[in-house]
């Protein structure tokens, strides 16, 4: 059985779905691993590294004889079409933004797994690529904030005067937000944070940051995610947050609601109220932006001297470790339904749709799109 990792074709995507040091986990199961030449170039994995790890490196069309295709970004509809029937793909594959790829997969008779849809149950934590990539994004957000800010993060009392610590505000304290809090605090900033989920107050405090209590109802949705908020509540939340935003030197926003536009946490007016030199890091820029005016992949400077960094492929900006973590997620998912080679038994895939994880993550199977989730 042949597991194939093609080069990522999306612009700006610097991760790779398998890094050399996990390949032995697959070969040990009895799988052949084929890597498209140059697939690891941005994540510091050379073709030679892959070969040394036990994979075959090939150029040209690698997909046509693949049994399993592992990738970060969804395969394009074209790529899906070249796959043989019954092939399996594992990648990010959002039912919302990658509908065309899903359709292509269904019509090609491919079983496509979407990492976005791996259920957030304890057993699936090792396959949870959303979490692992959010971790990278959160760290990155804080580092970028520090890099862009004209100020020090830590407090320093020196012979030339006392540098006061930066005030960092984190909006949305999920996985990425908590990691951003941790990183900013490590650098010495004074961090406060807000989130709509009731559990987040304790979580924020457990990171040593201050939680901002607003007199608003909590919004807890299914699976530990947030629910979408009404426009009225959104306006109220923005109003209450304004004073906190005004005194911040760096604002990091990470708010998201699964399958929806990112909630709008800051309007243009709020941005304009900020002092020159303030930095806003909007990790949600790609899904509509938490901040009005943010553009994915750009740094927008407002007339008031505020700079808004719009995230785009943020985990790709930490390609080595993002790939490292992503590979393990993918391998863990693949291992879940692989029966390893044993004695004269050959390696086989065993898709048990009774399994909550397989059932949840598979978007297409046997030529059809699976029930809406």
């Amino acid at each position, binding site marked *: 059985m042949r597991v194939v990792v093609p080069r990522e074709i999306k612009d700006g995507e610097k991760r790779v779905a398998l890094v050399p040091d996990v390949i032995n986990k697959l070969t040990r199961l009895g799988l052949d691993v084929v890597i498209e030449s140059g697939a690891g170039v941005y994540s510091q994995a050379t073709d030679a590294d892959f070969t040394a790890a036990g994979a075959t490196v090939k150029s040209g069309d690698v997909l046509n004889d693949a049994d399993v295709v592992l990738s970060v970004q969804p395969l394009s509809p074209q790529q899906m079409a070249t796959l043989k029937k019954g092939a399996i793909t594992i990648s990010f594959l959002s039912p919302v933004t990658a509908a065309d790829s899903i359709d292509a997969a269904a019509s090609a008779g491919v079983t496509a797994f979407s990492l976005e849809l791996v259920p957030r*149950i*304890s*057993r699936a*934590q*090792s396959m949870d690529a959303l*979490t*692992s990539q959010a*971790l990278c994004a959160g760290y990155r957000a804080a580092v970028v904030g520090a890099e862009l800010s004209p100020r020090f993060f830590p407090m320093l009392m020196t012979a030339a005067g006392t540098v006061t610590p930066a005030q960092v505000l984190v909006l949305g304290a999920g*996985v990425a937000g*908590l*990691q951003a809090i*941790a990183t900013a605090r*490590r650098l010495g900033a004074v961090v406060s944070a807000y989130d709509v989920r009731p*559990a987040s107050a*304790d*979580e924020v*405090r*457990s*990171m*040593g940051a201050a939680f901002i209590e607003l007199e608003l109802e909590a919004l807890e949705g299914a699976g530990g995610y947030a629910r979408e908020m009404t426009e009225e509540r959104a306006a109220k939340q923005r109003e209450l947050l304004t004073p906190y935003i005004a005194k911040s030197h760096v604002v990091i926003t990470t708010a998201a609601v699964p399958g929806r536009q990112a909630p709008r946490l800051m309007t243009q007016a709020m941005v304009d109220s900020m002092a020159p030199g303030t930095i806003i890091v909007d990790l949600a820029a790609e899904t509509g932006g938490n901040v009005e005016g943010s553009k994915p992949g750009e740094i927008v400077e407002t007339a008031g001297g505020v700079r808004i960094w719009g995230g785009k492929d943020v985990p790709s900006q930490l390609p080595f470790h993002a790939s490292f973590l992503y590979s393990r997620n993918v391998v863990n998912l693949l291992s879940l339904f692989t029966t390893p080679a044993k004695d004269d038994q050959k390696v086989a895939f065993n898709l048990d749709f009774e399994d909550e994880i397989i059932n949840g993550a598979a978007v297409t199977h046997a030529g059809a799109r699976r029930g809406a989730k």
Partner: protein
Amino acid sequence: MSHTLYDLIGLAAGVAFILALKGLSHPKTARRGNLIGAFGASLATLVVFFHTNEDSSLPLNNLGWILGAIAIGLVIGVPAARKVQMTQMPQLVALFNGVGGGAAALVAIVEYLNLGDKATTAEVIFTVFTVIVGCVSFSGSIITFMKLQELMTTRPVIFPAGRFIIAATLVSVLGVGGWVVNSLGTTPLLILAGLSLLFGILFVLPVGGADVPIVISLLNAFTGLTVAASGYVLDSTLLIIAGTLVGASGTILTRLMAEAMGRSLFGTLFGAFTAKPQDAAAAGEERPVRSGSPDDVAILLNYARRVVIVPGFGLAVAQAQHTVRELADLMISKGIDVAYGIHPVAGRMPGHMNVLLAEANVPYDQLAEMDEVNPTFGQTDVAIVIGANDVVNPAAQTTPGCPIYGMPILEVNHAANIIFLKRSMRPGFAGIENELLYDPKTMLLFGDAKASLTKVVSALKAL
């Protein structure tokens, strides 16, 4: 042997007992203390065979009987003490205490018979005291023994009008006691003994299982006092000193025990009467857990060779990272092998424990991943679980269908002892109960992790 020498040796034995108690109060010297006590007791027993005074000469009368009785005592006592299982030691101590009380009562009775009319009032008063308290100690201890050995119910035994019956018995004991003092005579003394035995039974019956150790300690102190009283009657400084020491230290110890268990002495003894019966029943429904004090935890840690610290979300909530490091450093400085076992999803964020522990500057090489640490729990003396729950919950391996089923866990259940630091019996993130909390190997230290750790550190330093 001259009387002075005899007395001096007796005093030496008394000093040995003081040193024994002193030694027993410290883990490091406890064993030696016990040996010193045994030495003192042997010495005292030995010299009594060489003791002469105006009205007696060597060898002792009834020497054969005496030696034979000692031999019988040895044949019964030593094997019983040797063979008993760890878990049954408390009831054996209760039994030993009871027979000691019985012996004191018998000694008083014999001496009374012997003295006859020669006895001074003071002597008679002390005799009466010894008989009453010795008998109460004897019968009370037998009941506690039966409770602990589960030869009878461990629940408080409440009977209608119980308190009146007990009060009545007590009054008659005192009344007969007064009668003996006034009119002397063997019969009243035997009646007194009988009534005291009855009172001892009635006194202990209403005490609930968990409070029994406190009662044993109290009866132990009582027995000490009877020995002191016998010492007065027999004119033996040694018995006075030894008995008083046990009486005093036993009283303090009883108070300390009651405090350590969070109970008042009064409540223990009379609680069954004041509390409503259904309360007692309801309390009986709860599953028992073993909760300890910071001292207990410190001692467990101090005598361990390998300790694994398992941090969880609670450590972060309590912001106890600096304190846990202090504890680890302290253990390392004592030559204990310490590792942190980090579960990949401990806390609420990937790497949560790393962030915390890095803040406290815990060296990276003390952190062990789950796969690395799990095989070592078999050789781990103590696993100390600090504000973690789900990540050590065996339900993940044993209970298909529960929310965490299939998640790999830190297998602390393979460690020889498990200590949990948490605030309550509440479950963790996944909301499912953790069977490990009820494991007999587990000791719970309730309270905020930071506060608890601080106490453990102090206790460990004091050792």
